[in-house]
């Protein structure tokens, strides 16, 4: 049930920033981060010195092939600010959105007025140095139990091997197949055509999808997102300050979150649902709104199968109905009943790692979509994560 004292009701999104998606970029990860951060600050119309909280996901790490090369300390130094609060976001926790949720709580508890949340990746650069740097094998001689130890010894070096299991199980259970799944990629690419920052903009057909090489059955090349160098920043502000800034405030109508343990090897159910179900329940228990109120959806698509699983987890589709909902592409078109992944998603726009979805949700609500703008979009669902799960229902009147 909706409560006005929930933390997300005290906070608005007031600015966004995003760099070009580089493959690779000629700018350092810190340069990219600062570019995105300054864009978001300028977008909101606050002073850099007004930022009093800084957080990133998942916290700086030298490992993982450029998965998170920049932390808050060097960003603070370069921006010349003196934030009162920072916190590394946990490695998966409630997915990539964990940093945003923590920022919301920092504002709602009165610690901060403006929290800048960023997500930077330098995976394209990492792979120029080492093709295998983004694999799950880790840097140690042996794989430890928390780091895919129950799967890596079986040559399952990429998350695609794991998500392929979910795709196959979904096919088996609901009697759908590769032609339906292909529409996730075709849908995104169609929208990416109108996103100048998408890395892949040439439209593809279902035949193109089926002709592309198999990666791990039933997932093909276009079922997988692409690594990039880039940064996205999302500025959160206290609601009482947000109304006086440049953009109409984006309200966070409700948020949901949940944890998973896939990297630790724990799977339950029949491989057609993830712990994101808990996230979906939480979100809808915090609002009187219903899925019918959602005008467009930015659904995490590290792999195409994520979109099916997420649409059902956040109740935008009934159980087993996501495949049919997307197939054919009419219902998820910009002019359809639920425009889906209007930037092209990660499959076509590049792996901004979840933050691209929140960025696009805000862009749509502020009417910045250009040729991909959803007419009259006032409410957008943004969800993130494959191993941890976060969702926000965003609204701007």
């Amino acid at each position, binding site marked *: 049930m909706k409560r006005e004292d929930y933390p997300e009701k005290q906070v608005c999104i007031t600015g966004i920033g995003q760099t070009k998606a580089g493959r690779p970029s000629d700018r350092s990860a810190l340069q990219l981060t600062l570019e995105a951060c300054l864009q978001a600050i300028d977008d909101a119309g606050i002073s850099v010195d007004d930022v009093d909280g800084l957080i990133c996901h998942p916290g700086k790490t030298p490992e993982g092939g450029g998965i998170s090369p920049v932390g808050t300390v060097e960003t603070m130094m370069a921006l010349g600010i003196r934030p009162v609060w920072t916190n590394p976001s946990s490695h998966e926790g409630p997915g990539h959105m964990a940093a945003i949720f923590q920022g919301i709580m920092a504002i709602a508890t009165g610690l901060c007025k403006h929290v800048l949340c960023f997500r930077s990746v330098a995976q394209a650069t990492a792979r120029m140095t080492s093709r295998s740097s983004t694999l799950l094998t880790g840097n140690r001689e*042996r794989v430890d*139990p928390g780091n895919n130890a129950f799967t890596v010894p*079986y040559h*399952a070096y990429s998350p695609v*091997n794991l998500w392929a*299991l979910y795709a196959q199980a979904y096919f088996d259970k609901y009697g759908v197949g590769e032609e339906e799944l292909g529409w996730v990629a075709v849908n995104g690419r169609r929208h990416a055509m109108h996103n100048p920052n998408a890395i892949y903009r040439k439209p593809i057909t279902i035949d193109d999808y089926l002709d592309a090489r198999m*990666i791990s*059955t*039933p*997932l093909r090349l276009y079922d997988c997102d692409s690594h990039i160098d880039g940064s996205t920043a999302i500025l959160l502000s206290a609601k009482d300050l947000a109304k006086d800034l440049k953009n109409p405030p984006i309200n966070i109508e409700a948020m949901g979150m949940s944890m998973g343990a896939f990297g630790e090897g724990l799977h339950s159910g029949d491989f057609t649902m993830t712990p994101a179900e808990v996230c979906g329940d939480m979100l809808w228990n915090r609002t009187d709104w219903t899925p019918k109120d959602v005008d467009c959806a930015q659904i995490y698509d590290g792999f195409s199968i994520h979109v099916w699983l997420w649409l059902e987890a956040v109740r935008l589709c009934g159980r087993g109905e996501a495949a049919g909902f997307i197939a054919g592409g009419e219902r998820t078109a910009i002019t359809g009943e639920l425009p889906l992944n209007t930037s092209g998603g990660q499959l076509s726009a590049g792996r901004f790692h979840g933050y691209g979805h929140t960025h696009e949700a805000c862009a749509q609500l502020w009417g910045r979509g250009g040729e991909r703008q959803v007419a009259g979009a006032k409410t957008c669902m943004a969800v993130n994560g494959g191993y941890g799960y976060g969702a926000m229902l965003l609204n701007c009147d």
Partner: protein
Amino acid sequence: MTARSNSMPARKLPLLTPETEAFWTGGKNGELLIQRCGTCGLYQHPPLPICSACRTETVASAAVSGKGKVKTFTINHQPWMPGLDEPFVFAAVELDEQAELYIFSNILAAPEAVTSGMRVKVSFEHLDDVWLPMFTPDGEAGDEA
């Protein structure tokens, strides 16, 4: 199948911990050891210091039948590293002892012969101090070289 295995890159082996050692070394005695709670009887995998259902510390490794079925599977085609150039099957195997008791493994069979629901049985691949549980089709003669 031996030839297939030998042509692959060296497997990256798991670190043995107090919780996981039994699982990874049970094959020394030809046993698939899965943790079971002495209080409530629940099997759990991955192994943990306590029972995730009744929260007692009465968990211990127990030999299971090593039989189960392929719950879901994938045939990997991508050569993630040099030498990984033959399609192979990676699967979630649901053990007979308990619903949703899954372990991940390779199915040592011709990839095109593997289906969801297929019956499989455990075998072990001994590498260093680890006996990796592997699975082969159950009841189909000639699948193991």
